[in-house]
């Protein structure tokens, strides 16, 4: 039993949802209780997807447990097939579904559904989200891909891009950037999977000469299998940062048999700004900034290289929650003379950050919380994702444009401080939207300052032209701090207009009513 408040990864069935939601015509029937439907909001709210995830939950209840929950599953599967007409279906159980041992895979086999049904075994009590995503993609590919036509020889080289999912950290933009990069080298992109892929696309995987393993967390299992099964080699470099992108291009050139000089000429053509911006004297203040990294393995490994070699920072600590790729992170950490922290306990991360006192934290939303508490600047470079991690603008992490984005990402927290983050975070919230937010955290402050305490301070030092009764003052304190300033100003404005000398609780509410729109 593990005590936790926050978790870096969801359960493995959420990983399976990321595959189903990424694809265009795959449906997931999940044997799960009603509360598990919360996961829909990850996609509709956090990622702002325009459609509900293609998931049907059986939503069994306590009173069903004595009866026939298998029938419930079969009814749900049949209804889903008829209503949504998917090209294939994945079936499985969530943590609670696993305990009632109905065997959705076995049940669906007996149903004679007119489409391929792929059973998933995702052990909820030992595995997590990324593993679940990787396993699901592997099972889908393993079932569907061999049915496709044999490879047709072509006079061009082609590749698949494997790994981008729904709810992935900047996957949408990374794919666009990398497809562009690959095509600029004259290589054809055969299939991108699972993001925006159809089941039919999975049938065509065999047609490629090699695979690009874009995100090892979700794609490596599949790439390894494709290599074994169809002798398709796959890339090892994740193209995040200038140097990694160049390495990636060289790797592609080798796999696609592009002559070395042609490849080098293409590399020369790039218009990436990071190297010059980093060499610009304006950036000297970045030298040796102590940086701490924590997140998924892919982003931490890549971002450490960017931070140290391309920004001139000093990596003082790094770690990951991706246990499956712990060895890679350990090896990378050795390059910077630090020992990797492998954990999924955010308290351990917090302790390490506190001890190391870095000048910049690069992490997930979890580290952003930690950094906020410790008053440290932070940039988000990894999942778990948050609505902010799906910016409206084009903002890849990969390729040359990604490197430009990274320069900004890794510099801005230092110049702007954390308060900007906080304000942005709450701007769209129903209670916060009108508040001209005060600066919550002192810039560059190294001790913990609670936003509330700060706000209180400002309030007591403001000189009131009008007097507040004790009762009214107490009532004002009950209003959330982020709108309190506005409430005070409005009430005073109202009292001034009414020619009142004293503000009572009645005045406070009269003012509230007056200004209510």
């Amino acid at each position: 039993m593990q005590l936790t408040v926050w978790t870096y990864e969801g359960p493995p069935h959420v990983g399976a949802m990321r595959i189903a939601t990424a694809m265009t015509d795959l449906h997931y029937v999940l044997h799960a209780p009603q509360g598990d439907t919360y996961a829909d909001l990850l996609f509709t709210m956090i990622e702002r997807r325009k459609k509900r995830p293609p998931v049907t939950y059986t939503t069994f209840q306590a009173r069903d447990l004595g009866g026939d929950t298998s029938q419930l599953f079969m009814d749900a599967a049949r209804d889903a097939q008829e209503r949504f007409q998917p090209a294939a279906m994945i079936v499985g159980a969530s943590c609670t579904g696993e305990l009632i041992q109905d065997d959705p895979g076995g049940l669906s086999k007996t149903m004679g559904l007119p489409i391929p049904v792929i059973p998933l075994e995702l052990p909820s009590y030992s595995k997590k989200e990324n593993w679940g995503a990787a396993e699901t993609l592997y099972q889908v590919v393993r079932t569907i891909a061999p049915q496709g036509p044999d490879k047709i020889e072509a006079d061009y080289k082609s590749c698949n891009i494997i790994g981008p999912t729904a709810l992935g950290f900047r996957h949408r933009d990374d794919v666009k950037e990398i497809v562009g990069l690959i095509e600029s080298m004259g290589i054809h992109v055969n299939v991108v999977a699972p993001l925006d892929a159809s089941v039919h696309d999975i049938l065509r995987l065999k047609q490629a000469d090699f695979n690009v393993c874009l995100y090892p967390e979700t794609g490596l299992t599949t790439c390894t299998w494709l290599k074994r099964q169809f002798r398709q080699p796959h890339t090892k470099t994740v193209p995040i940062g200038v140097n990694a992108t160049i390495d990636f291009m060289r790797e592609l050139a080798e796999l696609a048999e592009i002559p070395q000089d042609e490849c080098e000429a293409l590399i020369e053509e790039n218009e990436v700004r990071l190297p010059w911006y980093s060499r610009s004297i304006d950036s000297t203040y970045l030298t040796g900034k102590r940086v701490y990294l924590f997140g998924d393995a892919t982003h931490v490994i890549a971002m450490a290289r960017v931070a140290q070699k391309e920004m001139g920072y000093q990596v003082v600590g790094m770690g990951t929650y991706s246990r499956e790729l712990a060895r890679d992170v350990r090896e990378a950490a050795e390059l910077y003379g630090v020992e990797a922290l492998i954990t999924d306990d955010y308290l351990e991360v917090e302790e390490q950050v506190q001890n190391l006192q870095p000048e910049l934290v690069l992490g997930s939303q979890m580290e952003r919380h930690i950094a906020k508490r410790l008053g440290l600047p932070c940039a988000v470079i990894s999942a778990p994702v948050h609505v902010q991690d799906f910016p409206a603008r084009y903002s890849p992490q990969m390729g040359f444009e990604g490197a430009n984005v990274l320069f900004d990402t890794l510099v801005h927290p230092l110049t702007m401080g954390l308060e900007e983050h906080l304000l942005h975070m709450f701007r769209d919230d129903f209670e916060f939207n009108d508040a001209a937010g005060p600066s919550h955290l002192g810039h560059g402050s190294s001790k913990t300052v609670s936003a509330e305490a700060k706000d209180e301070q400002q309030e007591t030092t403001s000189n009131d032209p009008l007097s507040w009764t004790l009762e009214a003052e107490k009532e004002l304190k009950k209003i959330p701090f982020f709108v309190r300033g506005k409430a005070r100003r409005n009430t005073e404005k109202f009292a001034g207009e009414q020619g009142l000398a004293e503000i009572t609780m009645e005045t406070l509410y009269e003012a509230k009513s007056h200004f209510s729109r």
Partner: protein
Amino acid sequence: MSLTRDEINLPQVTGCAERPVLKQRGQHEVFCGLTGIMWLHRKIQDAFFLIVGSRTCAHLMQSAAGVMIFAEPRFGTAIMEERDLAGIADMHDELDGVVEKLLARRPEIRLLFLVGSCPSEVIKLDLGRAAERLAVQHSPDVRILNYSGSGIETTFTQGEDACLAALVPSLPPEPDQAPAALMVVGALADVVEDQFARLFEEMGIGPVRFLPARLADDMPSVGPNTVYLLAQPFLTDTARALEERGATLLQTPFPLGAEGTTAWLKTAADAFGVDEDTFNNVIEKPKQRAERAIELHREKLEGKTVFFFPDSQLEIPLARFLGNELGMVATEVGTPYLNKRLVAHDLNALPDTVSVSEGQDVDLQLDRCREERPDIVVCGLGLANPLEVEGITTKWSIELVFTPIQGFEQAGDLAELFARPLNRRTRLEV
């Protein structure tokens, strides 16, 4: 004013008029009761909620709580792992260890809830026994109670019901000779609670006690002389538990809007024999403010149709408010569970043209909603954006639970919650 229980004028018990209720059984698109922890842990300031569950439970809490939590929250999940389930580790020993660690880290905690989840219920982990055992160990510093917030038994706000129902047996007893006392039951925002307390005080009913109290040691006492008003409609089990302790329900409409709040306060005023003039004097100004604030939105909302997906059990009282006080037209009002006794007044106030549904088959309900194309749809977070894409304006139902909406001073805010999405739509030209 000190009255004995016998001097209390109980309101006439109102039954529900016959009306068809659509019941469908299919996929439920709702939160489980664990989500109630989100506001309960803010309300009871020295309580900790320990979910005994899975990674899914922890993930739900952080996804639904999102950025709302500033400090280290007073809730957490003891995640069951393979070794617990395989019997390699003794689950009760493990839980004891987790509680030990937790209480050492948070010495300010005075009340600990062990909260059951779907997996803990399915494996029949006896949290009642665990709570008793741990209580012996940690008494008197920390009181330990248990309830289930599992999705196989509870929907969203029913988690609060289960929590309060678990608190009731531990409330101190009121002596038999004690004067009649009013209790307000159901978590309210502190600011709303204080407004109500003041109004009751001015009417001469008092002191009024609130359940839950803000601190574990301030929980109200209860006995045969307790009469209670529900501030929230979803408290079926809590009402039952209070009645087992001898308390008496004052059946009433819920305090939403000017009319709802007036009726709610009036029920208590009548019970305690407050004279008409006093009552009117006390509510006059705030009621006018509420009416004024509602009036500002009436023009924008009058005649608009509204469709409720089931979520919080607040749907029936909300539909009453929107219909009677803002002139909106409810088409379908879905609720996860319909307790006809508790919402009788609000339900009876709905015109016959309103279709009431209980439970859910979300796909069929979406079909009906698309067919009707209401002006505004009240629904959960999983459905809102997809409906907006189809051109249907939505109001997230969760906001109605997380925002202070009860009472006179909040009536305008409540109306505004419905006006804003429509307002936004007319503004945008992109």
